[in-house]
């Protein structure tokens, strides 16, 4: 049996009929074709599916779509013009913070949360905050450096660059 669900996804109102067992990751990927959100473990450990749920990072694989009724979901696609994300993308390239790119969307969403929530985070704190996002390629060094570099740049120059395009 399907249930109606109405939610905001990347600022757009979405209505759908979903099975209770459908998780949010499969919902955004298979129903809305927003495939930036990756599925790595489907049991809430690897963090590849991290999205923003009402502004806070959440694992899309262990949240059911029906439980997101009335809530605000933001995936990586919905953050392409976000000023912090613009900086993080540049920093991830500069610091070689990705190899295969599969964990990257979840990493970026967690990284953005760290940057906004913990402006004074040092390297140790960044690592703790990243503990819920697994990367099998990079050994995390570039990811940690990239986040630290964005934090540092924001401290010295708090105004965000203007939005692209």
């Amino acid at each position, binding site marked *: 049996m399907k249930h109606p669900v109405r939610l905001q996804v990347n600022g757009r109102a979405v209505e759908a009929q979903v099975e209770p067992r459908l998780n949010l990751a499969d919902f955004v990927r298979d129903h809305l074709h927003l*495939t930036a959100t*990756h599925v790595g473990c489907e049991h809430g450990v690897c963090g590849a599916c991290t999205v923003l749920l009402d502004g806070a990072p959440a694992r899309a694989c262990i949240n059911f779509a029906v439980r997101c009724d009335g809530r605000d979901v933001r995936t990586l696609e919905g953050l392409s013009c976000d000023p912090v994300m613009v900086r993080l993308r540049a920093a991830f390239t500069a610091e070689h913070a990705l*190899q295969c*790119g599969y964990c990257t969307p979840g990493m970026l969403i967690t990284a953005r949360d760290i940057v906004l929530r913990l402006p004074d985070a040092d390297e140790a704190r960044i690592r703790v905050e990243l*503990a819920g996002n697994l990367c099998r*390629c990079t*050994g995390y060094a570039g990811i940690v450096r990239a986040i630290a570099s964005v934090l540092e740049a924001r401290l010295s120059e708090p105004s965000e660059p203007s939005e692209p395009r």
Partner: protein
Amino acid sequence: MAGTAHKGVGASLPRKEDARFLLGEGEFVGDIHRPGMLEVAFVRAPVAHARIAGRLKPAGFEGRVFFMQDLDGVAPIRAVSGLPGFKASDLWPLARDKVRHVGEAVAMCVAETRAEAEDLAAQVMVEYDELPAVVDMEAALSAPPALLHEQWGDNVFLESLVDGDLAAIRARAEIRITRRLRTARQSMAPIEGRAVLCEWNGRLGQLEMHSAAQMPHITRAGLSECLGIDQGAIRVIAPDVGGGFGYKGILLPEEVCLGWLARHLRRPVRWLEDRREQLTANANCREHHYDLTLHADRDGRLLAIDCEAIVDSGAYSLYPFSACLEAAQVGSILPGPYTMEGYRCRTWSVATNKPGILPYRGVARTGVCFALEVTLDAVARAAGREPYEVRLLNLVQPGQMPYDNITRKHFDSGDYPEAVRRAVAAIDLPKWRAAQATGEDAGTDMADPRGGRRIGVGFAVYCEQGAHGTSVYHGWGIPMVPGREPCAARLSPDGILELRIGAHSHGQSLETTLAQVAHEVLSIDPEQVRLVHGDTAMTPYSTGTWGSRCMVMSGGAVAQSCTELGERVKAIASAVLDVPPDALQLRDGGVHVRGSDRCLSFAEVAHLFYRQPQRLPPTLEAGLEVVTGYRPEVDTGTFSYACHAVVVSVDTQLGHVELLDYVIVEDGGTLVNPMVVDGQIIGGTAQGIGTALYEEMPYDMQGQPLASTLADYMLPGATEMPPLRIEHLQTPSPYTRFGQKGLGEGGAIAPPAAIVNAINDALAPLGVELTETPATPRRILAAIEAAEVERSGSGTHA
């Protein structure tokens, strides 16, 4: 060269592939949708060893559920080896008569969604007559509770012997150290699992398969054999692939099943491996047992190695690398970078009721390095010398290069002792030895009989043979022998350089580094270079991405094809500019007349050739597309190497290990992109730290896998990584195009050896020596307690 050095070989050029991933625009198999696509779930064996006594499809769904007997015309996967005595196994894509490991696919179910396919799978009835499970490799060999493949008469895929007469050496060796060592079974665990999307193209009469694969051409060859259709009727596409590490270098039973199903149903079908399937049902790796004896003189100079090793190869020989790759490698690479007089090694590739094995990053080297380096530390303790001194005494010397070692491995170049000396200096050994002596910095607690937190320093040296070619591989007689590595290079009519290679990049950064190679040769801007890879229809045949080979082989091929393409560009420019070709040079993205400002850009040359052929002499034959096949001067492989040095602190009450400092002194020859190289080394080291301390795929006595989630199978996270410092030696290989060496696997090889040596250094005063990985708190505490029991005689810890 000066004007171009910042983008060519040696430049830390930022990656071209990053932009799409950072925008979430990468395309992995699971991101691809097709109209009318159906999803597949597999019924998998819940027991490790059984005969299938009966099977029943749910009523009304007979056309949606398939057993092996439904897959008409499908042959088993048969990965043979030509090594004498090898016994082959038949891996039916769906189990036919027996199941031989938990998770083996028994039935295939197809439905509109994966959830519905899983519902269907839950209703399939399979009756099993259970057989005793063969779980431990030593028992499988010496006292087997059952036979996996009855017709063999034993459980041995292959026994092999590298023989040597050690009698005289035994008689004069003053130090003789024997150890039993074990390495745990592992899962390679890329974050993206395997994924297959298959459709039948009626117009082309072609099966089109998207697969998360490292070796698409090999996959196609294997599919053709199993499905009984010619290779031209199969197109394999590996789009973006979320990490490989060896796990995706295999022909999957699931690929064969979906290939058959798409053709049978004439509809697109997809299967996405879930994490439980990955951890429990699909290939594992690296479960080794060693009985290792080192003979040395009183100074610790190595005289001979004598070894018997078993590799748990699981139930089936997997395609194309076969069940014996790891064990055969043990026999040939155990001497590592050391010189010695005598060597003997007997190995067994043993069948057990576990999934088959695949070569994981480093393959057998990680286990071999662990066994040898841990035992070598025991030699050093017996000789009363620093472990690094014993290594300096035994390493191949730079003056001996090129060097053929005792197993006839041909070392191309390098200064191994220098790597050790620099690691000793960088880790500041005297500082830590002083800290150990005083207990300062360590948190040593003199009131605690175990000493509280104890500090130790460990070293490990390895060498990594990469890009080994035809002369090495044909001897194994497996379904795959690398030949000349091809690259097709062509200029598009607007002057974009397209490079087509048969290897695949899934994190290795080839889109960037091969563009750097093209830039080095042609001076074309890397932004004007597109790499086409991962599609059998669009790329020349290659064995693919494995064995740290791409930068040497594909890099060499790109350079060779671009060199030839440059000559053709010059021929066109020569005709149009009316100067001889040798008056021309390639620089700044075009072709220039030496000593003048006359030039043509690549775009202008391409435009002339394709769009204005009337301006060219009719005698000009050669076009702007070149295919060449590259082979290094000597194809036995490049040898990169490193010395890893690590400082640990071991909590003797909790068994917890903390990595306080970590230094890697590495020699990968000429580095094409140092940033990418460091990324490979750090990433590999993270995997090696996982091997050393965390990752383990245990099985119970019934052959049930005990790590079925990432909460049980622990991958290193950001907090588990130590501060890491890398120093580079850059001894060019004399045999490769730029002196580059394969190095993608090296980071994953040394950490278990270095870390366990450091733990043993820390715990030596307690009489503790670990010989097993991973060094979990449970194992460390058990070893400490065992030593305490031994010291106190009958003891209180009974």
